[in-house]
């Protein structure tokens, strides 16, 4: 693969993604369990809330917004994570970061009675950070550092352990079990502006940090020694970029629950579009993530009509085959 696709292709990719995003947003507002007429859509978008159709449209708007925000956060986080770990299988879901965030939120709800979305976000970010550090530390013990296999195994095993801790925390609390169980699958249904607003500052900081780390990620891609030779302080650069992904993953998990595989698929596809330069790859991945999550959400509404399929389930079903495809492509080193 060339390091960077030619400029016209990159610009074309950028604009077509933007167009796709706009189109998907429009679809997301118009398609749903309930058929609504065009006049109701227009009225609903204008803020009217008089008929059921208009109310449905009014509910779809924050949902679309949340899907766009969370999707771009996850896509971007995946791209940065793959860059930081130089690991094609890195994904917030596979590496257990989302489960860590989920456990922290569940503990917060069950033991400390947190209710506000701000508190959700803080605990999710803390949990994401702890589990990211834990998994990375576990995966990189040993001679050859963090190989894809070791990281994936460390992440999976940690996820299983954390998931049973989540059950242990939830079980005595019948009052919150139902809510947590549906949150845990990962979905954007039932979004409201109250749930989105508190997440935005975290997203913004995470976005800024991630985009700023693009140049350092380019150096890191050459290998630690080369990056150090280029004057990069490798551990600092790595920690800085990791902070960005932790903020993004934590915030996305707090808002929608753990959603897997978006961060895995999107950077791989975007690399095919624009090449390896992180200065292009990162923003394109954010756009691509938004498109993918929206698409998954819309699919979930169409497939299971009149019910809805949670977006986390759709992404798992699309993402897992993709994961397997990457595994088959790569010449992954033996443990």
């Amino acid at each position, binding site marked *: 693969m060339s390091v960077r696709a030619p400029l016209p292709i990159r610009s074309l990719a950028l604009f077509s993604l933007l167009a796709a995003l706009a189109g998907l947003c429009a679809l997301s507002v118009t398609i749903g369990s309930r058929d609504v007429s065009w006049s109701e859509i227009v009225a609903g978008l204008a803020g009217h809330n008089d008929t059921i159709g208009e109310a449905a449209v009014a509910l779809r708007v924050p949902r679309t917004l949340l899907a766009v925000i969370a999707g771009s956060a996850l896509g971007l986080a995946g791209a940065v994570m793959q860059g930081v770990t130089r690991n094609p*299988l890195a994904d917030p*879901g*596979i590496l257990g970061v989302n489960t860590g965030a989920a456990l922290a939120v569940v503990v917060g709800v069950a033991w400390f009675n947190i209710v506000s979305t701000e508190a959700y976000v803080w605990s999710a970010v803390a949990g994401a950070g702890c589990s990211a550090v834990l998994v990375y530390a*576990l*995966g*990189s*013990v*040993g*001679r050859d550092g963090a190989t*894809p*296999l*070791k990281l*994936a*195994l*460390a992440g*999976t*095993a*940690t996820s*299983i*352990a*954390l*998931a*049973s*801790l989540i*059950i*242990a925390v939830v*079980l*005595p609390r*019948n009052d919150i*079990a139902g809510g947590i*169980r*549906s949150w*845990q*699958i990962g979905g954007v249904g039932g979004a409201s502006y109250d749930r989105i607003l508190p997440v935005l500052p975290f997203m913004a900081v995470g976005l800024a940090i991630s985009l700023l780390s693009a140049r350092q990620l380019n150096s890191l891609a050459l290998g630690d020694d080369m990056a150090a030779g280029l004057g990069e302080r490798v551990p600092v650069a790595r920690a800085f970029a990791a902070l960005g992904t932790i903020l993004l993953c934590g915030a996305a998990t707090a808002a929608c629950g753990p959603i*897997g*595989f978006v961060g895995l698929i999107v950077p791989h596809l975007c690399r095919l579009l624009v090449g390896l330069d992180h200065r292009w790859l990162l923003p394109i991945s954010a756009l691509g993530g938004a498109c993918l999550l929206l698409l998954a959400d819309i699919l979930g509404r169409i497939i299971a009509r009149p*019910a809805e*399929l*949670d977006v*986390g*389930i759709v992404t*798992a*079903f699309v*993402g*897992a*085959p993709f*994961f*397997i495809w990457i*595994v*088959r492509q790569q010449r*992954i*080193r*033996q*443990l």
Partner: protein
Amino acid sequence: MTTLPLDRFSLAEDRRRLTLRRGALVAVLAALLAGVFALTLSLGQSYTPPGEVLRVLLGEEVQGAGFTVGQLRLPRAVLSVLAGLSFGMAGVAFQTMLRNPLASPDIVGVSSGASAAAVFAIVVLSMKGPAVSVVAVLAGLAVALSVYGLSFRNGVAGTRLILVGIGVSAMLESLVAYILTQAPEWTLQEVLRWLTGSVNGARLDQAMPLLAALLVFGGLLLGCARNLMALRLGDDTAAALGVRVSLTRLVIIVSAVGLIATATAVTGPIAFVAFLSGPIAARIAGTRGSLLIPSALVGALLVLAGDYVGQFLLPIRYPVGVVTGALGAPFLIYLLVRVNRSGGSL
């Protein structure tokens, strides 16, 4: 590592000592298991004297104890032991075959395949009893074979197989989660069984498929224990020693999956038992010789003791899977660190 004695007589002597030690160890583990089994029968919410327990076991009608021991405690203990034996033996078979302690059936997707099939059969097809076990075994096999097939590319590398398994199990777990959300009339207990494994509400007739599977598949596994040991040396060396590698592999996969799936169809995927038993058995018994039986016994102990702890020793009643899952976490971290440092043997 000790140096091996080289002359013929001391080799034979060494071997005899090893067999003896292994035999003694298995006996101790079995005795321990019997002890815990007896304890769970006689001591629960209330205490039943051993004499009464014995009379119930012998089929006599005993007031009170007949219900608590015969209806509540015995089925639970029997199921725990049988499921634990199955998980322990199948887990170590996978780990030995793939030469990686992390490649246990609960990580490479077999457990989640069986569990997804069981949930599907129960919720969507409204099946019951042995039919569920059959579906679970078939689905577990299908998942195992497709993981095997998907990781086939100029031969199957253990690494690729594990990673493909991780992908497949992520997909199946989300399927389980989805089916569970579609079954709102289910109690939380029932849902938890399929998320983490539990022996709550055990009945003695559920033990029959487990027993049958243990006899058939367990027997098959024990039958190829020697070939399994040879596989530990690497496929090429094993082939040079006269092992038909692909056939052995197939037999091991089929029987291990059979064990796991039958047990999962009854108790759900009890977290980490298949994963932990082998490495614990290896710590106790050393890695020379076959670990199938020690690991099966360790598995049974884990489930039995885990269920007892979850029922009586914690402030809230937890299903056994939560206890083994939480217990497993620190051990898992230790194991990951150790494996990564030393490069991958049990």
